[in-house]
């Protein structure tokens, strides 16, 4: 238990620095951008010089970069994410509104790629080098190589337009007034295609890792011992080989959490899912610096928490980890 606490403490201290680097880095990047929020805004309105000056003043863009960064950090110290320029609403509110959608999408896609990937990986790795092993590895790789947006568009054409089994996009039927279970079912049907598009891409990752881990495990002593004890192949595969191969996958889960949010930018746009990824893209296009910082901060925080959970899980699963943490 103390080990877990030490781990949490170390991580929290480190995270503060990490978040600070992330904030300042993102801020500087956005400041270097050609065009500001006013330039992005007047694309849709036009306007004369006076109006433009008025807007810059209203949105605080006539202050120096340093002042704005200091103001932002000061507000952040008070746990205030500030006001979005383009939405003219508190950023915390906007992010909390979009976060659940992204979490459901990413969570389901991760569950799909991790669950199906490792299951197929076990199936393939049970007989390394067999025909099914090769077909599964290459098949999953081919899926990985398909650009996510293209997979998404094809899924829409086939399952939503031609077959009409599933809705083309969105997170739920618009203005349907559904509640409770009916609403949950509605959201679930809307999620099938985006989750498939996002999850299938990362399937290969887990499948191949599982398979490689199992191939390795077959050569280990304890497996040979189990074989010598005359255990059934099925038993050996599940209880010994797969179990040992699973550990690195858990680490991968943590590492992938940040990547999936990136992947969801494109998927959310194709499927019109109102999540954080799309919001981030809009924030970049609208040069809404505080909003983008808020999103990056939220996702960084999320990634840190997920990785902490993964490490804790790992620490309980594998007692050797605590010692090596000092090097991480």
């Amino acid at each position, binding site marked *: 238990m103390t080990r877990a606490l030490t781990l949490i403490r170390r991580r929290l201290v480190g995270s503060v620095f990490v978040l600070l680097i992330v904030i300042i880095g993102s801020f500087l990047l956005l400041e270097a951008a050609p065009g500001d929020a006013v330039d992005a805004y007047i694309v*849709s309105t036009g306007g*004369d010089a006076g109006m433009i000056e008025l807007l810059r003043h209203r949105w605080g863009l006539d202050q120096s970069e340093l002042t704005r960064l200091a103001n932002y950090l000061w507000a952040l110290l008070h746990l205030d994410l500030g006001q979005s320029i383009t939405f*003219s609403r508190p950023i915390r509110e906007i992010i909390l509104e979009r976060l659940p959608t992204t979490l459901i999408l990413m969570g389901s896609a991760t569950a799909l790629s991790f669950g199906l990937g490792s299951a197929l990986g076990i199936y393939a790795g049970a007989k390394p080098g067999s025909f099914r092993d090769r077909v599964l590895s290459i098949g999953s790789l081919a899926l990985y190589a398909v650009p996510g947006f293209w997979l998404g568009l094809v899924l829409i054409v086939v399952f939503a337009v031609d077959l009409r089994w599933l809705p083309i996009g969105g*997170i739920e039927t618009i*203005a349907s007034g559904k509640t409770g279970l009916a609403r949950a079912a509605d959201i679930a049907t809307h999620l099938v295609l985006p989750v498939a598009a996002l999850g299938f891409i990362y399937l290969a990752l887990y499948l191949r890792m599982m398979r490689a881990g199992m191939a390795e495990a077959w050569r280990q002593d304890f497996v040979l011992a189990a074989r010598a004890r005359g255990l059934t192949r099925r038993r050996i595969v599940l209880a010994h080989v797969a179990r040992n191969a699973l550990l690195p996958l858990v680490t991968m889960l943590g590492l992938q959490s940040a990547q999936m949010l990136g992947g969801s930018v494109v998927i959310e746009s194709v499927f019109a899912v109102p999540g954080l990824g799309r919001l981030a893209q809009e924030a970049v296009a609208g040069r809404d610096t505080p909003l983008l910082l808020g999103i990056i901060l939220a996702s960084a925080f999320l990634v840190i928490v997920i990785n902490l959970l993964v490490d804790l899980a790992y620490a309980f699963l594998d007692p050797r980890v605590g010692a090596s943490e000092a090097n991480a």
Partner: protein
Amino acid sequence: MSELTISRRGLLAGSALLLASTALPTIGFAQTPKKGGRLIVAADSEPRNLNPAIVASNGVFFISSKIVETLAEASSDGKDGLEPRLALSWEGAADGLSVTFKLREGVKWHDGKPFTSADVAFSALQIWKPLQNLGRTVFKDLAAVDTPDELTAIFKFAKPTPFQLIRNALPALSSVVPKHVYAVGKIEDNPANNAPVGTGPFKFAEYKAGQYYRLTKNDAYWGKDEPYLDEIVYQVLPDRTSAAAALEAEEIQLAAFSAVPLADLDRISKVPGLKVITKGYEGLTYQLVVEINHRRKELADLKVRQAIAHAIDKDFVVKTVFLGYAATATGPVPKNDPQFYTADVPTYAFDVAKANALLDEAGYKRADDGKRFALKLLPAPYFNETKQFGDYLRQALAAIGIDAEIVNNDSAAHIKAVYTDHAFDLAVGPPVFRGDPAISTTILVQSGIPDGVPFSNQGGYKNAELDALIAKASETLDTSARTELYKEFQKKVAADLPLINVAEWSFISVARDTVGNIANNPRWAVSNWADTYLES
């Protein structure tokens, strides 16, 4: 200036092209409109500020024009191309110093309070003139609005202002908002900017960011039996291909503003239950323009500009980039404009040999690699078609030995590069024609505009003769004299080529067969939809 929020892809045809389209206009069918139903419409962007009195742009109108009404709306058969909305009549004084509006009686705001001339005076003086993107120009000399009674509003101008201009500005610039809602606090921060209150046939109900806007029927609407629909829902579909899919899957019933890509129209017109409509945008014409930076010494030479004009195959552009849903342009006023257009201008036929000869004459000989000089070309990113034309223009310029490198920016960076930093040689822009040169095309030519004003002449072009002409037209009160001046303006622009007008286009709607009364006015997509109905 341009109004682009609505859609990054653009399309279609001025009325000149209607014959070429596959559409069957729906007007003229003797059908009795049915009551009730929910119309679901595709929206590809989410305007943050829904107050059309502050932000006069098509993206805002698309949603807000159903909620907040203007004094008058565009009409294909009304006098001066207008039909009454909140105003029943409008009369300009001969001295150009006042305009009198008689207002509609018995109109109520959505919160039940009566609509009066005080609301018009408040909107004009407190919002249109100081805050509105376009009103700041048109109403700059508005000094006062007299309200002798509740149904009369008299606009008083400090300087003579052409009545023709005010008239032409009414459909887009005269959204009236309630004084009692806006009188308290800062107008820009008023919550009603995000949940507008108006007099229109529909009330604002809710907005779910990233998902939809929902409007519900206004039972107390002044129009007899109107509106027919119970609800309008705008479903947010950010991806370019999803509107077509949603229409086919019967999840939405209407995609306006060319939400369905041009290249998909031929296929989708054959899908049973769907119709492609090219009407209803006559008052919303976009111009495809090559903006020129005259600070570049090569481009300051008229011969070079003429060569570029001769190098562009306008018919190819209309046929391939716009798939026929556009018209070739001759000058700064579009062919489908009923008041100002003249065909009597110098034209530039597609002639590569002549273009090459002009460049040789100008002294820019081809080097050994066949190139004369290099240029930076910035196509505006807001429309598919502007980008594609950019790709085409690069090839067209290569044919005459000009090596153009395309710079691909997002919207904010493009605006900054072209209109503030002037970091371009050629740019492709889609300015919108608003029915009067004074509030659209002249700003692209006239000099003395401060840096940073978007969709204006930032190419460093200066022509005293043209400036004088524009100034004279802006204070000429007589309608026919004013029109003549703008015809002169078109001739001069086409001769001196401060910019090159390539094509004119507007949008296309795709709808299910069940949607009735579509496209029955020249600004249909941004009109109030009071008479739109659903058959089943």
